[in-house]
Each structure stands twice: as C-alpha cells, then as structure tokens.
C-alpha cells in the first residue's frame, strides 16, 4: 500500500471509530435514565395537561416502534445506527409530529453561514497577522500580541454580550436579536439580504475576532521559533526580500497551525452555540437551547450527533490537507525518502 493511502485508510478508520463511539454515547447515555425513556417523556408531556390522552397514546406508540423498545438493547442500537446512516433523526417530542430532520434543516443554514466564514477568514487573517508581527517585532508586534492575547482569552459568550451591549444597546446602530427582522420573511430579495446582513455582523464579529486572536498568538510563537533558525539567517544574509522571507516562515510554521485549525473548529462550534443563544440567532444553538428547555430528547440527540459529524468531517478534511501539504507524507508517497 502506498504510504499516503495507508495514511488515509488509518485516518478513516479512526474517524469511523470516533463516530461509532459518539453514536454509542448518544444512544446509551439517555437510556441510563432509570425506567423506560418513552414512559418518562410521555408522562412528562401528559402532566403539562396540554396534550390529550388520545394523542399521548399515539405518540407513545410511535416511540415504542421507533425505538424498537420491545427488543434487546443491542438490537435497538443497530436499528438506531441503521436509521442514522439513512439520515433519519427521528420525530420531535415537543413538536410532534414534526421530524427532527425538518427542525434541524431550518436551523442549519444559519449556523453554517455564521461559522464557516468565521473559521476560514479568522484562520487566514490570524495567521498572516501573527507571522507579520513576529517578523516586524517592535511596537507593531506588542500591539498585535496583546490584542490577540486579549481576544483569544475572552470567552465566546462574554465577547458576544459585550458587543451586543456596545453596538445594539448603548450605541444602537445594529439590531440586537434574531437573524432577520420579524416583519420580513426569508426571501431572495435585496431588502432581505441587507436586513439579514445587519443581523449577521455582530454574531459574526464575536466569533471571528476570537479565532483571529487564537490563531495569531499561535502563529506568532511558531514564527518566532522559525525566525531563530538557520535558514532565515541565511536568507537574510543573502539579502532576500522581506516578503519572500515572511512567505517562507509562513509556509514552515503552517503545519502546526493546520492542526490548530482542527482544534479551533471544535471550540468554535461549541462557542457558536452559545453566541447564537445570546443573539437569539435562528441556528442550531438556539434550537438546542429550546429543545433542552422542552426535554425534547430526539432533537437534542439529533443536534449532538450532527455537531459530532460536522466536527469529525471538518477534522478529517484538515487531516487530509495535512497529508497533502506535509512534505514528509507527500515525499514518501512519491517514493523519495
């Protein structure tokens, strides 16, 4: 087997294992609650007095069938996995008979639109800033370093609340909540786009600033380390241009920063959930919050498995690009050693 193929196969095997472990946690943890989960939930719904007993019966039957509760646990897990692989997340408790898929599908685009640009733009700006700061040194370096350190150590929700207070309450130039004005309804018009953009700025800023900070701090210390290395003094004494040298440092310090990207994705996804709640942004985080308040287990589990899939997928892509970029893995693929 070619080394790169072996690298790929090992990685895929690990991610499958991680996914299975997450699916198992998703399946078995809620079943540790004593008693039949369906009993508990359905009786909880009944005590609210909002659901008629006839529809309770119907809900009950749906869940018993869905979970296959009359079968042994391991068979149930198999059923669960099978449904998962078919992309079926089940039926919501609180919004019966809405499917979890439809609830998640409504929220997902908002979260992706918020997080994907935040991570990519933040990673790029942060790394360039860190490399330049390390190379320039002096007052520029100190300013960037302290600023980046400050932003990277501030919790996501704190920055979100501070930005919200500053720019939507104290100096109200931007809307304070939601993904769009409630008098509008989502449509592909220019007016809606501008409206959505205004609602987008603050949540986006509170995510991207933190990513920039974290990446800049990491890149700066990597680049300082590279600056002390022999090849840089050699390039300097050869009179190579500043830009060439920075580019060289950037490329060499990149590798660990790509691992840093994988790390950032995990913490960003967690942080973004809370940021959405602060801004009542109509994404996955706000949906999860509502589901937790309603004890809507299928929606909670659907969202946790979805987050796992997204983070595992993103990490896998990062690993894949690492395999392409790392000269050691690439070289061994071409048979050079």
């Amino acid at each position, binding site marked *: 087997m070619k080394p790169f193929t072996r690298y790929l196969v090992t990685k895929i095997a*690990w*991610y499958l*294992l*991680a996914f299975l*472990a*997450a699916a198992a*946690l*998703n399946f078995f*943890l*809620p079943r*540790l*609650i004593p008693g039949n989960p369906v009993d508990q939930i359905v009786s909880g719904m009944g005590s609210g007095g909002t659901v008629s007993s006839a529809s309770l019966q119907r809900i009950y039957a749906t869940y018993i069938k869905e979970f296959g509760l009359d079968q042994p646990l391991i068979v149930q897990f198999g059923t669960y996995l099978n449904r998962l692989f078919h992309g079926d997340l089940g039926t919501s408790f609180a919004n019966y008979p809405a499917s979890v898929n439809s609830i998640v599908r409504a929220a997902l685009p908002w979260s992706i639109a918020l997080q994907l640009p935040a991570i990519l733009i933040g990673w790029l700006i942060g790394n360039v800033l860190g490399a330049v700061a390390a190379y320039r040194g002096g007052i520029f370096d100190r300013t960037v370093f302290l600023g980046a*350190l*400050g932003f*990277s*150590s*501030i*919790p996501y*929700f*704190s*920055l979100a*609340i*501070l930005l*919200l*207070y500053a720019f*939507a*309450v104290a100096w109200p130039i931007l809307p*304070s*909540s939601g993904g769009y004005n409630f008098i509008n309804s989502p449509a592909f018009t220019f007016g809606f786009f501008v409206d959505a953009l205004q609602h987008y700025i603050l949540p986006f800023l509170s995510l991207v600033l933190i990513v920039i900070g974290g990446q800049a701090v990491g890149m700066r*210390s990597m680049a*300082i*380390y590279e600056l002390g290395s022999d090849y840089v003094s050699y390039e300097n004494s050869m009179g190579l241009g500043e830009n060439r040298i920075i580019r060289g440092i950037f490329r060499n310090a990149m590798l660990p920063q790509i691992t840093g990207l994988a790390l950032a994705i*995990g913490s960003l*996804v*967690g*942080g973004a*959930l*809370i940021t959405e*709640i*602060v801004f009542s942004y109509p994404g996955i985080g706000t949906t*999860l*919050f509502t589901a*937790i*308040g309603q004890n809507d*287990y299928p929606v*909670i*589990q659907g969202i*946790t498995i979805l*987050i*796992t899939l997204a*983070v*595992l997928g993103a*990490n896998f892509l990062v690993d894949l690009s690492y395999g392409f970029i790392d000269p050691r893995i690439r070289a061994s693929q071409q048979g050079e050693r």
Partner: protein
Amino acid sequence: MLRSLLKNSRFTFSAVLLLIIVLVGVIGPLIRRANPLFAVGGRYDRPDSKLWLGTDAIGNDVFLQLIHGIGNSLYIGLVAGVIATLIGVIIGLSAGYFGGLLDEVLMGMTNVFITIPTIVILVLLSVTLNSRSTVLLGVIIGVTSWPWTARAVRSQAASLRSREHVDVARLSGISTPRILMGEILPYMASYVVMAFVLQMSSGILNEAGLSLLGLGPDNSISLGKLLQGALQGEALRTGAYWAILPPTLILALISFALLMVQSSLDEYFNPRLRRNT
C-alpha cells in the same frame, strides 16, 4: 522561583487579579451569608447605596448573587480541574511509561475522545443526569475534559522513561510505583501544574456554557446561571446592564487571568519561548 516569576509583570498582574477574585468568591459569601436566591426588591431596580448592583429580573440582589456565584463557579472549576488533571495524569503516565499494548489502547481511547467535541459529551451527560448539584456539574465537566492532558502527559512520560536516572532506579530494583512517583512525576510537575490551570479555566467556562444552554446547577447560583437569568430576562435589551455586565466581565477576567498565569508559567519553564533572553 517565585521571585523570578514575580519579575514578569504579566504574571504578577494576573496573579494579583486572580487572588482578588478568589478572595471575593471565598470570603464574600462568608460575610454576606444571606440567601442569594431570595427576592429583596422589584424587577431590575437600579443600583443604589444599599443594593450595589441593583436587582435582577425577579428582584434578587445582583451583588449578593455575584459573590456567591464567583465562589460556586471557582468551586466547579476546581473540582473539574482536579478530576480532569488526575484522570489525564493517570492515563498519560501509564500509557507513556509502560508503552506497548497498554499505550496503544489508552491512547486510542484518548484520541477517539479528543475528536468528539467536548460540548456534545457535556450536553449528553447533563441531559441524562436530570438533577445536577454544583459538585456533580464539576464532576461531569472533569470527566469530559481529560483527553488533552492525557495526551500531553503521555508524551512527557514516554520521553522521561528512557532517561538515565530512571534506568538507574529500575536497575537498582526500586518498585514501579516508586519510580513513577519519585523519578517521573517530579520531572513533569511544572507541566501538570500548567495543565491544571488550563483545565480549571476551561472548567469555569464550560459551566457557564452549560448554564447558558439551560443545563446549569439546580437550586444554586453560579456565574453562568447569573448570565443565563439575565439573558432570559432580557436584561440587555431593557437596559439593565448591572444585571448582565458584571458576571460577563468577571468571567472574562477569570479566563484572561488564568490564561496569563499559564502562559507566563510556560515562558518561565520553556525559556525558548522568551523573546529576549
């Protein structure tokens, strides 16, 4: 050691900041023993000479809640930090020192848990345990956040085990537990301390995150629960900044100070990171 650390202004500043916050959180509740979950005023009363930070949406004294909340949040962070560091050290040390199959199994497990996002396990565990005390919340956070520590400790232990002094100890027939305690652990103590500081910081933030998701400690107040109450009570949009900005800033300060302490310790222990030596 302390003297040269104190020369680092970043360390001194953050350590003093931390000390003040800890003192407020530990001594504050002893002086003001009143129940913080007891209404003393109306909805969002403004701060005055008696109620320093006014009241929240249901009329509780925000200042009283804040000092009790700081105490509880630090406590949760401490429990989470101790548990996570302990599990991380035990797993990392066994994997790194013994190597072989044990290493493969333990690190395989660790790598699987590193790739699953922490927030997912936290949410699932918290949802499963539908009554949560402050201690239990600390335990939940602790048992979820050990993998990074385990991985770091493992690589330290693996490189330490082939050092000469360890070989000498092994050859002179010293028992394995005593080698681990006497010849390995002391050499990575600085590392473990730094890991603990990071774990404590992320523990406090995880508490806040869980509380904001509606999975905070029951019948108790914490910085996260203060935030959640203020957000749900629309404190920001009604202009009641006194109910939401103090816990927001305190959490940011705690996180900032702990990270500064960690990074200055890191610079102290790894001179390579210092710019001008």
